[in-house]
């Protein structure tokens, strides 16, 4: 991904996270826990399960729809990060060639089914993770993680990183653009120049950190970034977590598509 593309994706996701919808108003802890439970539920399906995973798409779909997150944006990002999983999963059809009949007269090797399972699980878990950050501001997630018990030092680290991420990315972008404008063809893109760019950035970073520290000291910094928000769990958060958790357990224990299929078959005659 090019620098500009990565940066604009970052910015858009960040802007989406500050909107105000029913999903955005849920407590960050509830959303983090629900997303983690979702991931655990999805990966707990055995390697050849594909159909029973499909009802779980309701979770990301509902979050995206109620949270007013553009579906195409999420889908594009899922595809963009799929290479590693696709690359590893691709070998399943090659190494696992036991034949399985999936419909009258149609048989495929079991490896394709496990590959499909990997792809479906990938789409589900990645979209859920993206939707978490799209519907919860990063500082909100950090506050939630702090309330869930993560060490204060690490949470401060996350908040500082976030705060200065955009500043440093813009600075890096300026340097990279300068490099690109001065390198005819590929001449400047080698390791030598890269090392010097990184070294310069690092020194600027250290000096900036000194200035920041001084400024924060002058404003009463004492080691932790305080927050005025009193975040308490509300009934809507509890309802959300119970409904989500119950839905995941249901999908895990009951093969929903097969049941629906048989019901339809019975009704049709």
């Amino acid at each position, binding site marked *: 991904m090019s620098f500009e593309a990565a940066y604009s994706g970052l910015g858009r996701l960040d802007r989406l996270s500050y909107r105000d919808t029913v999903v955005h108003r849920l407590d960050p802890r509830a959303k983090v826990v629900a997303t983690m439970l979702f991931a655990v539920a999805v*990966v707990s399906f055995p390697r050849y399960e594909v159909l029973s995973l499909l009802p779980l798409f309701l979770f990301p779909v509902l979050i995206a729809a109620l949270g007013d997150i553009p579906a195409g944006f999420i889908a594009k990002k899922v595809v963009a990060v799929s290479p590693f999983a696709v690359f*590893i999963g691709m070998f399943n059809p*090659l190494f696992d060639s036991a034949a399985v009949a999936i419909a009258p007269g149609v048989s495929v090797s079991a490896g394709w089914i496990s590959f499909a399972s990997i792809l479906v699980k990938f789409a589900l878990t990645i979209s*859920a993770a993206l939707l*978490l950050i799209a519907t919860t501001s990063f500082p909100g997630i950090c506050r939630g993680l702090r309330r869930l018990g993560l060490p204060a*030092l690490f949470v401060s680290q996350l908040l500082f*990183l976030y705060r200065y991420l955009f500043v440093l990315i813009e600075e890096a972008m300026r340097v990279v653009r300068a490099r690109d404008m001065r390198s005819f063809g590929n001449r400047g893109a080698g390791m030598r120049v890269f090392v010097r760019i990184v070294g310069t950035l690092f020194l600027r970073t250290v000096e900036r950190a000194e200035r920041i520290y001084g400024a924060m000291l002058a404003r009463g910094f004492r*080691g932790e970034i305080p927050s005025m928000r009193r975040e308490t769990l509300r009934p809507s958060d509890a309802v959300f977590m119970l409904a989500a958790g119950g839905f995941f357990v249901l999908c895990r224990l009951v093969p929903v*598509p*097969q049941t629906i299929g048989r019901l339809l078959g019975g009704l049709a005659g």
Partner: protein
Amino acid sequence: MHMADALLSPAVGGTFWAGTIGAIGYASKKLKEHLDDRKIPLMGVLGAFIFASQMINFTIPGTGSSGHLGGGMILAILLGPHAAFLVMASVLTVQALFFADGGLLALGCNIWNLGIYPCFVAWPLIYKPLAGDGRNPRRILAASMASGIAGLQMGAFSVVLQTLLSGKTALPFGTFLLMMQPIHLAIGVIEGFVTAGVIHYVRAARPEILDSSASSVPLAAGISLRNVLIGFLALAIVTGGALSWFASARPDGLEWSIAKVTGKGELPEQQHGVPAALKGLQERTAFLPDYGFKSPSGEPKAKKGEAPAWPAVDAATSVSGLIGGVLVLVVAFGIGWAIRAFRRRSIP
């Protein structure tokens, strides 16, 4: 290479998350003991620096392909192991959230693979002894190379272990290793060069940064650190061994018992208080020779350790399953589409 959720099992993912949380807690505690507040914004900004640097590509000489910085070793050299680990963990967390790099369950594995090995194994055991006082550029180059290569090899091997223990891939161990290790050897060499180059640059421009960081890490703690590292390695080995037993024994029993529960629980439920159509369906399906449930879930028990070979699945049940699957997808996405359409209409 980042792990992905789709390749993990809950047991492996959960175990490495537990290890990572433990490591974060340990590093935070250790850091708090001799931390001055000045380091807190520095760590944050350095995290942003590593993040931004990872977005800059450079061409690798000779191959034409592009590479980018990892950063674990540079952080360990500049900040010491505990702070470097926290910074790496924070960078990977932000990447997992904003760039969907792997997923939230795999984040535990990624922080372990890309944070523990460079900061707590390669830096104290390889870089520090080789680099000595840090003034000889050739020793720094050798130390960076060795520790960079070692850290990445350990990380890559870790990914292979985690994927295989999860059991979602059909790749044999040897083939997977042959794919991962050589690539990461090359990446390690590059990382070693870049790390040495940056350290050299910083030493030339502002040597006091390196001197102060080198002295701020109490070397006396190295003794207990070694014990901790041995403990980590032992934990990893024990976990791996225990997990391989766990991973192969449990799912079979679990699937079998779930099939037993749903196979029994569903039939009587649908006979009570349900319209006649469903009752008729039940009676009809009871006449089918193959019960839809038992064949897919029966064989994991039967063929432990063999190449999985499904008996021919009853075509009728699989077709109905496929139809049900399509219907489920249509309903799920239809609900989403309907909500959006409703929203748009209600906005004046």
